[in-house]
């Protein structure tokens, strides 16, 4: 028996949206409800994610605003903020509530606007993003988020010989996948040379190693296992788990192992009764190319130290033995913070339904999603399966 099932999925394009947050959220939420064939009167709770509306748009207490806009006022609404793992944590709590019998039908989703076109400029957003690092022991040194993952990746390069060219292959692969995704922020391919020629942001990361600031929204409808078959295309949630790592970075035992991801993955795999080698593909949190390398190892998809080599050798391509980020990932699909977690669930559902179009992973029956927040100290791992 699955813990719950996803029976509806919706998301906006990721890119630039000059649209108020509740309207952007509604575009994804109503699509998910229509996909599920669920009326708003059937929805028992809303699990809503938005990370930075307070800082970026002077908007807090967004739960009731979003709920009212889509006709869901009256039911319990909870809003999550866990940096970039915001809506995956909303999803985890939703699945737990359904699995525990508290609710039968819930809506989960997230929304964020991060682009300079619709909000603050790069320097201001860089500061807002840095608010997810430690206020007293990291921010005063001038650390940024590219810098956070640069610190982790540089040590990985030192330990294992991972190269900048291998990192560039992650970007090239994800841009290639994004070019096949009509909802991706970046719909064009790139090359290793172009990545290595782009300006340095925080070494070893160049501009083309970094995901963009994006606007967008995503949502899924989660129902109890015994209700799933009354919907057209249910996808099972076989496992979802979250773990927390030590902050700040300097106090982590071994920063580049991203221990929270390993702990969450072990628990999610155990719930699913499946091992890493049973995953037909993965959507992982590639906020920077190095983050995908670390995630591929933490999830057990490739051996420790081989994440960069696997990318360069094509093992993580759509036709490789461990396909990673067929959506284009955060790198090419885009990264509207609070929408990213449930957008990964949308991508898993589409492949497991066989509806992912040109980027479809052939015969995908089981997949894993990895969504992290901050310096990876919050990580949520979800395993989903095609319903037998």
């Amino acid at each position, binding site marked *: 028996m699955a813990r719950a099932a996803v029976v509806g999925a919706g998301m906006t394009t990721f890119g630039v949206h000059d649209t108020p947050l509740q309207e952007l959220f509604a575009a994804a939420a109503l699509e998910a409800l229509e996909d599920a064939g669920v009326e708003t009167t059937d929805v028992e709770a809303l699990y809503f994610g938005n990370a930075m509306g307070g800082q970026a748009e002077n908007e807090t207490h967004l739960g009731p605003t979003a709920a009212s806009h889509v006709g869901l006022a009256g039911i319990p609404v909870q809003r999550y903020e866990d940096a970039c793992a915001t809506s995956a944590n909303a999803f985890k709590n939703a699945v737990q509530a359904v699995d525990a019998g508290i609710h039968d039908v819930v809506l989960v989703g997230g929304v964020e606007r991060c682009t300079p076109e619709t909000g603050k400029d790069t320097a201001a957003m860089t500061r807002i993003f840095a608010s997810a690092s430690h206020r007293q022991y990291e*921010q005063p040194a001038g650390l940024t988020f590219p810098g956070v993952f640069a610190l982790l990746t540089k040590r990985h390069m030192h330990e294992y010989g991972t190269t900048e060219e291998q990192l560039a292959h992650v970007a090239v692969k994800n841009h290639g996948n994004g070019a096949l995704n009509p909802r991706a922020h970046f719909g064009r391919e790139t090359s290793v040379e172009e990545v290595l020629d782009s300006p340095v942001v925080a070494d070893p990361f160049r501009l083309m190693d970094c995901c963009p600031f994006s606007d967008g929204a995503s949502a899924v409808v989660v129902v109890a296992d015994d209700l799933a078959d009354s919907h057209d295309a249910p996808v099972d949630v076989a496992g979802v788990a979250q773990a927390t790592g030590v902050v700040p970075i300097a106090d982590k035992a071994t920063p580049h192992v991203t221990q929270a991801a390993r702990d969450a993955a072990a628990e999610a795999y155990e719930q699913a009764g499946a091992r890493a080698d049973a995953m037909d593909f993965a959507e992982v949190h590639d906020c920077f190319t190095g983050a995908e390398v670390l995630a591929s190892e933490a999830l057990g998809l490739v051996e420790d130290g081989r994440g960069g080599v696997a990318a360069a050798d094509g093992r993580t391509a759509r036709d490789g033995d461990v396909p990673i980020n067929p959506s284009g990932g955060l790198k090419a699909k885009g990264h509207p913070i609070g929408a990213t977690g449930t957008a990964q669930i949308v991508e898993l559902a589409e492949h497991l339904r066989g509806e992912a179009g040109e980027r479809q992973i052939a015969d995908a029956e089981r997949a894993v999603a990895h969504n992290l927040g901050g310096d990876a100290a919050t990580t949520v791992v979800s395993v989903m399966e095609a319903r037998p």
Partner: protein
Amino acid sequence: MSEGFTHDAWAEAVRDGRLLGATCRDCGATVGAPAAACPHCGARALAVRDLPTRGTVYTETTIEVPPAGVEERGYQVAVVDLGDTRVLGRLDDEAVTIGDDVVLAGFLDDDQGNPAPRFEAV
């Protein structure tokens, strides 16, 4: 005792040219940032102590795109290995790499008066 290991105590030490850490009396781990309990085992028996001010670079990056409020660019941020623990700090005009020896060399204040340790190559 843990009551003494506050940000105020840590910051005062940094301004005084020292680094404060704490060793867990239960699991023996040493941390470089104040906490009310050991982040590794949860014990509240932390013994505050002075950390070495000289260490080696564990990892580092050079920030070329700074956040709003930081005027410079091209500065380094490093995690420095002090033996029993590590601490994050800032280096300016140094160009150190992993394994290089560095020593505490003052501090800088951010725009809200929070100090960050500053290191320089030995």
